[in-house]
């Protein structure tokens, strides 16, 4: 299992954000769905080793997250796109991606080719020498995806990766996701149910800090009936599962 977490719990003040949550993921593209405030981003931050749960066990790439050595080994094989991020104003797009290649301790001789390959995969090679601040929001997002995939991570975490992308780019991005999911575990957190239906092999649904559904998009769609709100089968399934849990 690339991701194996058991009964993790995070509490900020009096609010319980993750509540005895279990999750096991292997190679492939996985969708993470849930309403705002469900704990999606906190879960992504735990998997990115940026947040530490108050209780529970986290194993990534077969390694328990604990001492510094294990953490460093796991982080070298990690790709993480946070929900929002800034940039260093003087960096060009290429330097931005190169910086993360160095931070992830890639072998030096692989860095130049890997940086350009990552930029090519997100369609930014023609803007590679422009400063980050001259890019549109969607392009900055794609640069963020490029830094996440530059080290060919075995665990790739993308928090709302399609925010700001236009429909055509979204189609290209889904193709990239399927490509990446062949030999990596890709977890895509999104509130766009349609993204999940098209690009993901499996879906996990989180609400109130708990995992309330895990299965294929087809299974999620099958959970919905004609009476449920939504424009597509999978949206109706999504609202049906949520309603059943909250009832």
């Amino acid at each position, binding site marked *: 299992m690339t991701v194996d977490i058991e009964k993790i719990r995070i509490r900020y003040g009096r609010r319980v954000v993750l509540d005895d949550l279990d999750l096991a993921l292997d190679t492939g593209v996985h969708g993470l769905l849930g309403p705002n405030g469900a704990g999606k981003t906190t879960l992504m931050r735990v998997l990115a080793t940026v*947040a530490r749960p108050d209780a529970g066990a986290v194993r990534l790439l077969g390694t328990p997250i604990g001492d510094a050595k294990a953490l460093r080994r796991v982080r070298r094989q990690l790709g993480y796109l*946070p929900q929002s991020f800034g940039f260093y104003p003087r960096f060009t797009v290429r330097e931005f991606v*190169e910086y993360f290649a160095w*931070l992830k301790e890639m072998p030096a001789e692989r860095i130049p080719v890997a940086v350009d390959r990552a930029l090519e995969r997100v369609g930014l*090679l023609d803007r590679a020498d422009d400063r980050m601040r001259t890019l549109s929001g969607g392009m900055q997002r794609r640069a963020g995806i490029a830094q996440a995939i530059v080290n060919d991570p075995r665990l790739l975490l993308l928090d709302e990766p399609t925010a700001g992308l236009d429909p055509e780019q979204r189609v290209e991005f889904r193709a990239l996701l399927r490509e990446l999911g062949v030999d990596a575990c890709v977890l895509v957190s999104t509130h766009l149910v349609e993204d999940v239906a098209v690009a993901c092999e499996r879906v996990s649904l989180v609400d109130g800090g708990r995992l309330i559904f895990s299965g294929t998009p087809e299974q999620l769609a099958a959970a919905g009936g004609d009476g449920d709100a939504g424009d597509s089968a999978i949206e109706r399934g999504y609202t049906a599962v949520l309603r059943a849990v909250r009832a």
Partner: protein
Amino acid sequence: MSSHVSDADLRAWSEDRLAEPAAWSLEAHLDQCRACRGRVPADLPPPPVDLPPQGRVRPPSRARRIRMLIGAGPQARVAWFSAVAVTVVLTLVVAIQPGTVVPQWVLLLAAPALPVLGTAASYGRHTDPLYEMVASSAYGGLRIVLWRTLSVLAVSLPVSAAAGSASGLGAPAVWLLPSLALTALTLALAARTGPAVAASIVAAVWAVLVLGTLWSPANGAQLVDAPSAPAWLAVLAAAAVVTLTRRFQEAPR
């Protein structure tokens, strides 16, 4: 063996008429020979323009790595550039008009605390726009803070030494010791509290020390004079040991 290429071969190569093996050895020669490169006929077909501009990442040398690790952190730069600027101005004022406009102790308060402020500004959720991504990388945590501290020290230590000699307090070389010791203390504390809180604590302690010693006859100079050096070195060593043994890399809360 003849060391240069004939005009006929150069012409043939430039028109793409040369057989492959001959073209390869000619290109290998051109790579090394400026004279023959200059003789390539000028009416060459223009290079294709539709090629993507690939491979322009700098060669991945050790120097490049250090430059990237130290140089990135411009958000911090704003903070420590202004801190450095303030100290430079103070230093100049004190040097030109000793003890009149700005008392020496203001300089004593500001200069050694500079790298502490820079360190605080260099890393953290609120000061680094890429914090989340950097923190999840193999360099996240103490390792990147150390690199950024190096970049801060590179700028602030010379300023600190200049301030020392301008102030007329203590020995200029000894001014570097509180700078280093306070920075090391900040790093050691940062393992537990994060850089921002650590820096506030250390800066407050330094301010208490400076203001407390002002009432003594030496007027604060004892903090930066030769007899205080062993004490600073001891603080520096202890803080360095704590910093290096801490498992700082564990994910921050």
